């Protein structure tokens, strides 16, 4: 008897796993910073619009591809778009995997700070900057916690879709929401916290006329919801035939945005409550993702009543949200390996070992992690374009028909318009990021050895692209056909 493909046990299980994928460290440490830097209210409006135009259609395309082909990124592009476009799926997968290498290190940082909190190290009078720099300059610690992160993720993935992924996310996601709500209520009881709320919800609608507000909103939407990463495609492989695509896409996008808003309502009041002046609060918010979290917040928490405990809870939320996102990246890599005939157990072992080894440079040097974050973060926009291309190649009406087949929310022709608009949105956002990077290195923007230069981005993308295009036929051949006996699975044959 043929082995039955694994499936999510319920719709709720699928949604929680998808939310775990979407809600990562970026929602906690990037969203509050970006919304603060982009006029508050106008950014919140632009962000939800960006989600509806960019993220929701991409989530739908990914789900349609994963659900119809029942294959990981490589196989899905081969069967959905055509054999000659397998390299596009490999690009999508490689981008997510290259992010996974350093994301495991970042998850390790969060776990380390959770351990600091549990050990009582986050206490009044703490020199948080020295603690952060001391941690980063100790390879033994960064490597150990990187290993801890990927081992936990690997162990969960090894247990399978229902017992591992679904069960872990059914605990993680509600816990994140509860913890963030507790931190928010606690922060709002502090004097001066209301200034943070006022800052978050600044109503100056003139901000909507600024290009920067929209560029940042679309960038945040592209990275935050996880649309165009190939992760949703991977999770959709395990959907039941009757499972909805359209409404689930909306639910995931709105839930991710709502959770981001919740973390904004927790972090900004906290920053304003503990900063002596508005200028000091602004300085903290401009300190970058890690600066805000590991230096300022770590310093702020213990200065308030019950702050050390709440600080521990905060780092627990950060650790498990990062872990849930890491799980989805590991699953993407494992799914692609399984498609080549490797057993899940062996695939999980390979992915853990490879992630540990290739994560080491980021664990040793933060500038390497920053380089990879920039290169493959912007590279994800290219992945998004490949999904738009896939839908276009298949036929937008045909893809819409596939989405509507099992959806109780009918997707109209607005979907076609959004997908057709994607190349324009892509070129504007992509061009803006490359241009921004060029302004950081006015004389050496072409140099591939500068951490955040356009030169390093183009060089690394070009190397990956050439390798994948050359390996296209080999990649296409390596994918074993999915089990046609799987009940209810409609498999689109290779055109």
């Amino acid at each position, binding site marked *: 008897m043929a082995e039955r493909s694994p499936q999510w046990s319920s*719709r709720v299980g699928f949604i929680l796993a998808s939310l775990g994928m979407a809600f990562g460290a970026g929602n906690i440490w990037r969203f509050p910073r970006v919304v603060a830097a982009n006029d508050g209210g106008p950014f919140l*409006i632009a962000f939800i619009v960006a989600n509806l135009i960019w993220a929701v259609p991409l989530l739908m395309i990914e789900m349609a591809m994963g659900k119809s082909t029942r294959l990981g990124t490589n196989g899905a592009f081969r069967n959905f778009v055509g054999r000659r476009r397998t390299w596009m799926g490999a690009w999508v997968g490689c981008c997510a995997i290259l992010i996974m290498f350093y994301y495991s290190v970042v998850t390790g940082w969060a776990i380390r700070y959770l351990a600091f909190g549990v050990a009582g190290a986050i206490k009044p009078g703490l020199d948080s900057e020295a603690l952060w720099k001391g941690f980063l300059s100790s390879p033994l610690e960064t490597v150990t916690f990187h290993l801890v992160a990927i081992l936990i993720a690997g162990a969960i993935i090894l247990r399978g879709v229902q017992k591992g992924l679904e069960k872990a996310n059914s605990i993680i996601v509600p816990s994140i929401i509860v913890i963030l709500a507790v931190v928010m209520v606690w922060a709002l009881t502090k004097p001066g916290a209301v200034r943070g*709320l006022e800052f978050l*919800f600044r109503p100056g609608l003139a901000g909507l006329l600024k290009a920067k507000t929209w560029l940042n909103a679309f960038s945040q939407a592209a990275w935050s919801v996880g649309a165009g990463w190939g992760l949703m495609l991977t999770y959709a492989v395990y959907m039941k035939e009757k499972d909805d695509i359209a*409404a689930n896409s909306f*639910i995931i996008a709105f839930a991710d945005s709502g959770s981001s808003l919740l973390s904004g309502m927790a972090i900004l009041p906290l920053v304003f409550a503990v900063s002596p002046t508005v200028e000091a609060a602004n300085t903290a918010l401009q300190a970058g993702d890690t600066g805000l979290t590991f230096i300022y917040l770590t310093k702020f928490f213990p200065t308030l009543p019950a702050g050390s405990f709440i600080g521990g809870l905060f780092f627990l939320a950060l650790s498990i949200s990062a872990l849930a996102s890491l799980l989805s990246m590991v699953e993407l890599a494992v799914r692609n390996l399984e498609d080549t005939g490797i057993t899940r157990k062996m695939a999980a072992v390979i992915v853990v070992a490879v992630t540990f080894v290739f994560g080491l440079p980021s664990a040793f040097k933060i500038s390497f992690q920053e380089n990879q974050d920039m290169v493959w973060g912007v590279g994800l926009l290219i992945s998004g374009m490949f999904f738009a291309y896939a839908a276009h190649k298949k036929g937008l009406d045909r893809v819409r028909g596939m989405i509507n087949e099992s959806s109780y929310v009918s997707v109209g022709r607005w979907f076609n318009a959004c997908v057709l608009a994607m190349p324009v949105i892509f070129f504007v956002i992509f061009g803006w990021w490359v241009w921004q990077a060029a302004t950081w290195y006015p004389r050496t923007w072409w140099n591939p050895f500068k951490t955040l230069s356009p030169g390093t981005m183009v060089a690394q993308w070009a190397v990956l692209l050439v390798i994948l295009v050359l390996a296209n036929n080999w990649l296409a051949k390596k994918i074993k056909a999915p089990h046609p006996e799987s009940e209810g699975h409609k498999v689109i044959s290779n055109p």
Partner: protein
Amino acid sequence: MSWQAVTMMVVMIAVYFGGLIYFALKGERKE
């Protein structure tokens, strides 16, 4: 907080969480 900021907060919470609740409830009814 100014009334404009309070209005913005109420509208944003309604949009962000209202959208989520709308699609979640629609799904439940269907199931």
